[in-house]
């Protein structure tokens, strides 16, 4: 099922990152991943990028393309749907499932970098860690997010952050990506204006 496309600019929202900023931010994250995992170096562990649908999946694919461009190492990319592992299933209306695709060789003994658009409560990542456990046994797990907006409810932090944004709980951070929404950009909007 296709995710809900985010519509054109709302007067109540503020642009946090322009299309150019998004591209630069993702490129910087790609460089950081190469550096921190010593990709291309002597004894680096195989790295796998797993995006969390919907917007983490295209984000992971973009990171992989940039990593290949910057370092000549091709990292396998996949998608990991965490819906079945969420702890709020009973509190929300039924969600359609999205697809999980693991790279050909699996994730056993790899360094898995989870990729998502926004890090908020940390509950999605907790669900992703549980889902990973059923998918295989990675050697280590790291987390890359385009935006960290704070308000964590669990002891979870990101290894790679595109942009830290202080927010209030009543605000919403909307990440738009061309693959899903037809354009790139990150916006902050007040929930009551939706």
């Amino acid at each position, binding site marked *: 099922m296709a995710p809900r496309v985010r519509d054109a600019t709302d007067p109540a929202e503020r642009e946090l990152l322009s299309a150019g900023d998004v591209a630069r931010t993702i490129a910087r994250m790609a460089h950081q991943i190469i550096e921190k995992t010593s990709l291309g170096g002597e004894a680096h562990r195989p790295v796998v990028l797993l995006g969390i649908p919907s917007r983490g999946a295209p984000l992971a694919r973009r990171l992989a393309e940039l990593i290949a461009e910057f370092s000549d190492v091709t990292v396998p990319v996949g998608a990991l749907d965490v819906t079945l592992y969420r702890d709020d299933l009973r509190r929300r209306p*039924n969600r359609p499932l999205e697809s999980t695709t693991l790279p050909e060789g699996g994730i056993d003994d790899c360094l898995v970098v989870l990729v998502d658009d926004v890090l908020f409560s940390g509950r999605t990542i907790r669900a992703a860690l549980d889902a990973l456990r059923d998918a295989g046994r990675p050697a280590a797990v790291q987390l890359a997010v385009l935006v960290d907006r704070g308000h964590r409810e669990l002891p979870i932090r990101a290894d790679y952050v595109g942009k830290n944004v202080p927010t209030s709980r009543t605000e919403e951070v909307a990440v738009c990506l061309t693959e899903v929404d037809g354009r790139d950009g990150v916006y902050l909007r007040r929930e009551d204006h939706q």
Partner: protein
Amino acid sequence: MKHLLSTDGLDPAQATALLDTADTLKRTLLGREVRKLPTLRGRTVVTMFYENSTRTRVSFEVAGKWMSADVINVSAGGSSVGKGESLRDTALTLSAAGADLVIVRHPASGAAHRLAGWLEGTGTGVVNAGDGMHEHPTQALLDAATLRERLGTIAGRRIAIVGDVLHSRVARSNVHLLTALGAEVVLVAPPTLLPTGVESWPVAVSHDLDPELPALDAVMMLRVQAERMHGGFFPSAREYSIAYGLNERRFNQLPEHAVVLHPGPMLRGMEIAAAVADSPRAAITEQVRNGVHVRMAVLYHLLAGEEEAA
């Protein structure tokens, strides 16, 4: 969605969502060592079977367990039903004991609907796993899932349902679901095995199987339900088999891509020849496999969502 009682009136969008969920679950679990999802932890599912069943009961139980629900099986033989307790009291007992969902099979048509009515306001949902000669919605859903998988689409496909339509809840559920999803359905049976009022169903009816074969995308063979027959519906088993059985000669008249389905249990040599049942174009074991994923999808849609204020 709180109950799944029939495919009659099931919204095509809802049906497609269920099939999509089943598909995703199947792909998610494919090749996994641990086929268990935590999604329905702490939910209690009770299966209540007043009629014999192998595949449906096992399939629901496996589906529930793979989703981490607690599954309890009650059969009419080993329970207080044997002491004369009514269906209503048994259901209220199970609900009071903590069942979030009751899956019921009963020889009386409409039993699941009555049950859903009695359980109104208790928060316990009901799934119809076959009620008399009325409906068997999850069977129709797994048939649709199998057809969609084999043929790519259901809309515009021509599907024959052959045999004992009169006594078949599988046929009724499939007629509603497949026509709602845009298929053309043709019922093929002797006049004695067609229900009265079949003219008003959204289907074509034929008494002769041979001329239908070359135009079919799928053929679904039904079991002759001897346990529900108390009269002469056809002269002899052999004559029925000759007129309506899917033998090898008939099988060869089907188009190359056509799929053979049977809801099981099948009577080899009666409605289907052994060689046909074992051919790669028969999807009979695939139906059983898909049954688990379809039932997981049903449990997910009924139990995972927001709790309604009871």
